[in-house]
């Protein structure tokens, strides 16, 4: 074997080693959470890479807590409603912004971009007031309302970029046939926008599912919380006896749906993220 071949082999080994490092780094924390969650509580404090004993006690424990089950239910309701509202308002707004030329369009785009960069805490006290005035404090509906602040700008922004790329002949034909803008949206654009809507809907779902600050501040009782808050507050009790087993089990439960979604819709998520950011 000459030196050149050796160098080539070394390069390939190095490349695959780097890939292995990246894989381990990305996946290990999740893997470790899974193992911790299936360990019997007696083994919890033994550090090991492969559990010697396992059972599902921790899962049984969290699912026997009605507040945790309720939190999952709340999270699903909130995230699904947020996606629905964001898409409904987003598709109409993006039609106006992407297909019609009118004065003030750039200003509105700028405002939308500005809102999406808002620090959430800057509206915390004002939004608290609004939510209380609407009688939505300690109610998942209040979260649905407040989450539009970060899902809507993003949805509008991405859908507008997609909307702009559709060929104009389609719309001209619709106008020739005397279609109103509403008919044009629902009959002509909607069928073509499904991929874009799936992408933005997915991203909005993930954002709503993961949100913490508003959920922590605008809810008070166990039955109204969403999962992230429920998990953060599982840590109650004394600082020295955190229930790590149940915390990890709960973490796995809320993460698995997301990981599955990400693996299935990898391509869509990537195109949505890059459309939102690179075009921004």
């Amino acid at each position, binding site marked *: 074997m000459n030196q050149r071949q050796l160098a080539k082999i070394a390069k390939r080994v190095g490349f695959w080693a780097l*890939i292995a490092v990246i*894989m381990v780094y990305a996946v290990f*924390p999740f893997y*470790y959470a899974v193992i911790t969650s299936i360990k019997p509580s007696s083994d919890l*404090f033994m*550090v090991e890479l492969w559990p010697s004993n396992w059972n599902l006690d921790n899962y049984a424990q969290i699912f026997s807590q009605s507040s945790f089950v309720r939190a999952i239910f709340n999270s699903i309701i909130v995230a699904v409603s947020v996606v629905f509202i964001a898409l409904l*308002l987003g598709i109409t707004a993006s*039609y*106006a*912004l992407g297909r019609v*030329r*009118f004065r003030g*369009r*750039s200003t*509105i785009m700028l405002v*939308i971009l*500005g809102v999406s960069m*808002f*620090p959430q*805490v*800057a*509206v*915390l*006290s*004002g939004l*608290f*007031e609004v939510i*209380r005035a609407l009688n939505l404090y300690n109610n998942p509906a209040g979260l649905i309302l407040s989450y*539009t*602040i970060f899902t*809507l*700008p993003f949805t*509008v922004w991405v859908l507008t970029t997609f909307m702009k*790329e559709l060929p*104009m002949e389609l*719309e001209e034909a619709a*106008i020739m046939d005397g279609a109103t*803008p509403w008919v044009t*949206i629902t009959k002509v654009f909607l069928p073509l926008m499904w991929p874009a809507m799936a992408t933005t809907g997915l991203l909005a779902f993930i954002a709503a599912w*993961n949100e*913490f*600050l508003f959920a922590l501040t605008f809810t008070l009782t166990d039955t109204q919380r969403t*999962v*992230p808050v429920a998990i*953060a507050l599982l840590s109650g009790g004394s600082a020295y006896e955190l229930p790590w087993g149940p*915390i*990890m089990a709960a973490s796995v439960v809320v*993460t698995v749906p*997301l*990981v599955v979604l*990400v693996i299935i819709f*990898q391509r869509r998520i*990537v195109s949505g*993220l*890059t*459309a939102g*950011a*690179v*075009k*921004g």
Partner: protein
Amino acid sequence: MSTSLKDSAPQGARLPIRQGRSTKVRRQRVKAAWLFLAPMLIALTLVAGWPLFRTFFLSLTDASLSDLDAANIIGFENYLVYENGLWFGVLADHVWWQSVWNTVYFSIVSVSLEVIFGVIVALILNAEFKGRTIVRAAVLIPWAIPTIVSAQMWAWMLNDQFGIINHLLMMAGIIENPIAWTASATYSMWAVIMVDVWKTIPFVALLVLAALQMLPKDCYEAAEVDGIHPVRVFFKVTLPLITPALMVAVIFRLLDALRVFDVIYVLTSNSTSTMSMSVYARQQLVEFQDVGYGSAASTLLFLIIALATIAYLYVGRNKIQLGGD
């Protein structure tokens, strides 16, 4: 789908229905456009515009959480006031300045690390190899995990007595005694940065990867023919070409990092050695029930981020088109 930056320039020209065509149709369309925009504009006013205005207003009052209506206007006293020979207010609170420093330090360090590692990961994912889809999916996992959950996962791995990280470091002989990662003033900021970097490398990597995939192949072929070292090619060809995309990733991440809350709150609670501006403002608002004072801190955070954004848009206005005409 085209995602290049230079692509977005002629967008105005691609808008359908040129001027000068049937003005009746045009007028109808503009009317419809405003009608379609109305629900979104109302929603954004309700959840963003009005609350922002109220936050600013409340920052000028002595409102408390238990009784918001009984607020009196006290001017700028929440920001700064001189009383009995001492300065009071957010701007005179050393905890606030500590949290400003923490936030800036956190933002700069974590975003720099994310950019460096994000570019490395993107370069690897850009290479052709078997199983690339699997690696790409795996890299996305940290991004999808809720921040709360990733903070808890790392808190467990960083646990001072039973955590695997201390265990491994001690086995490798790097440290002798376990480190109290999340409790010690020296290490807790690094613990927070570690978690944030882990979670957001995927985002940066994906943006950079999208830019890498649009690079012209011919300059690489030319470089290869000339026998130029790959590292030199990276710094002379690749890096300048992906800089626009990198700048977008940096600004998005920076604005995100400046408002950091979840990861710090869960990992280290209200400890002053890691407290960010958002954590400070929320603590005043909710835990101390001092809505006026907390709103003043929120307003300052908003101003800082707004200034950063305006500065960026001003500097980068030639690079980024706002999708307008």
